[in-house]
């Protein structure tokens, strides 16, 4: 409206309005596409959960928990696999948790900036995302070949190797959240460093470390590939870890790939159990983390 725009005020204004409309339209388009992407991603989750619930509950039945594998067409259940998984995951957690906590403590309390610490942190993060099948091959070479056969112990070791980096990551992160003034206060009272770490740092980070352990358990509870090369699976009920050992993921794999309808149904029931456990642990881990604040 000023003197400078006297040439073609109408055209400039129209161009500006058109440009503005175009920019708004592009913005709207991107917003809609992003919402659609989120809905699609959530849709995948819903689809997986729906399929598991639908097929899993159809096959759910008490004999699943009271009988072991039987030949196709004659009933049977998942008892051996469930117990086998529980035993292996429990021992692997007991083995891997202390190591993971010590490594996390080393990174957060002793080697924050040291060269060795940086290398350990890097390697631990690589192991966190490394293909689990390779851990299985490694343990096969390390424990199965020299000791003459597949064994539950080999499976336990493979699972604990997978668990360690998960615990390392959360332990270090949680210890680093503790303010240094707290450490200085403890040191100022004359406490040695190890007491400061065990009695004060670990205790303040307890919920966080617990979250890491729960996430680690959730991670190894559904691992299948490493067990193929280590504990192999076993159709009979077994508590002897020095022999091939049954586990739920291996049973699911074997049943789902079989041509028998009743075995495939059992695979779905097992899949529902495993997923419920894994997702339940994940939700629980998040709840534990929230209670700290």
């Amino acid at each position, binding site marked *: 409206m000023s003197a400078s725009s006297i040439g073609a005020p109408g055209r400039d204004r129209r161009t500006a309005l058109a440009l503005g409309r175009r*920019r708004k339209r592009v913005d709207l388009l991107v917003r809609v596409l992003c919402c659609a992407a989120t809905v699609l991603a959530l849709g995948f989750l819903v689809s997986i959960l729906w399929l598991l619930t639908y097929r899993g509950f159809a096959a759910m039945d008490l004999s699943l928990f009271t009988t072991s594998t039987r030949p196709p067409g004659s009933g049977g259940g998942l008892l051996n696999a469930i117990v086998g998984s529980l035993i292996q995951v429990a021992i692997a957690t007991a083995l891997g948790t202390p190591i993971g906590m010590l490594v996390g403590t080393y990174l957060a309390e002793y080697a924050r900036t040291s060269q060795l610490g940086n290398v*350990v942190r890097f390697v631990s993060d690589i192991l966190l995302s490394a293909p689990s099948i390779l851990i299985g091959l490694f343990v096969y070479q390390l424990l199965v070949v020299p000791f003459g056969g597949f064994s539950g112990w080999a499976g336990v070791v493979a699972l604990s190797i997978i668990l360690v980096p998960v615990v390392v990551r959360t332990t270090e992160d949680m210890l680093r959240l503790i303010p240094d003034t707290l450490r200085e206060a403890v040191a100022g009272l004359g406490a040695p460093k190890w007491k400061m770490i065990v009695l004060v740092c670990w205790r303040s980070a307890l919920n966080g470390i617990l979250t890491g352990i729960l996430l680690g358990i959730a991670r190894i509870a559904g691992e299948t590939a490493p067990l193929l090369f280590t504990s192999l699976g076993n159709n009979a009920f077994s508590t002897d870890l020095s022999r091939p050992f049954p586990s739920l993921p291996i049973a699911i*794999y074997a049943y789902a790939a079989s041509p028998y309808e009743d075995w495939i149904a059992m695979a779905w029931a097992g899949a529902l159990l495993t997923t419920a456990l894994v997702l339940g642990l994940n939700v629980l881990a998040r709840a534990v983390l929230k209670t700290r604040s």
Partner: protein
Amino acid sequence: MSQATALPDAMVTPPPARQGKSAASPGDAIFAAACTAAGVFVLLLLGGIIVELFIGGWPAFREFGLGFVTGTVWNPVDQVFGAGVSIYGTLVTAVLALLLAVPLAFGVAFYLTELAPGWLRGPVGTAIELLAAVPSIIYGMWGFFLLAPIMASSVQPWMIDTIGEIPIFGELFQGPAFGTGIFTASLVLAIMVLPFIAATMRDVFQQVPQVYKESAYGLGATTWEVVRGVVLPYTRVSVAGGIMLGLGRALGETMAVTFVIGNANRISTSLFGPGNTIASIVALEFGESELGSLKLSALLGLGFILFVISFLVLAASRFLLRPRIGS
């Protein structure tokens, strides 16, 4: 020992500082040594994986030399083993999975950081993270029993009729619609790596200083223009790191791929054709290989190659995602 038991007293009644320090040293030395040993143990673990896989694969490497990597014949009867097809399948499925996953992951991250109302961010973010927690074998069953039949009956025939008609490029989308195959495997992989990429993107998007975004809004920019002009340039290195993390995950995924890739040792011109990946061939053929056989060695050699590829990709991801001073 006596020094260690004297500690509580030393804490209650402050002794001279020097004495307190010397009383602490045995426990401290042991604890520090335990922590350091655990740290070194992690290094040994990685070293052990490399060495054991290489030793295991050595007979195959010695027998076939460089031809092991480039050879495309996998014939247990003639004792000829080449990893070419599996390496090709691994790379193609992983890259295709990224092409599908990255736009989706960006959309999710954009939604979670800019569009979603506050009360929805937590639940939707958690749901996306749960997608990452679902075990691989569950994805395999979902892909095989639900996705593959849908692909075979409607998606693939439709794609063959539309994209498949385009000259040259369409070659990739032709052939019979089995349902299983390279393309379906990539799709399942894409869903599996999507949450990892989306979570990384969301986290780095949130690190952009609010004043940068507000200045762009102040100039009249739309939300999309702010993300394209401010957020993405600011975070591009970390976004690349997140994508590499997804690639590293996709390369070694085993159970899900084994279910849906069709498991054939050949390179087909169509993406709908069957194939295999390093992880899937190892998982499937391992049970049929005898201890000490050349085949077992070839499988371990494949494991070594997969390890080298994923190590490089994950190291690159880690390098790109390293915390930077000033950001």
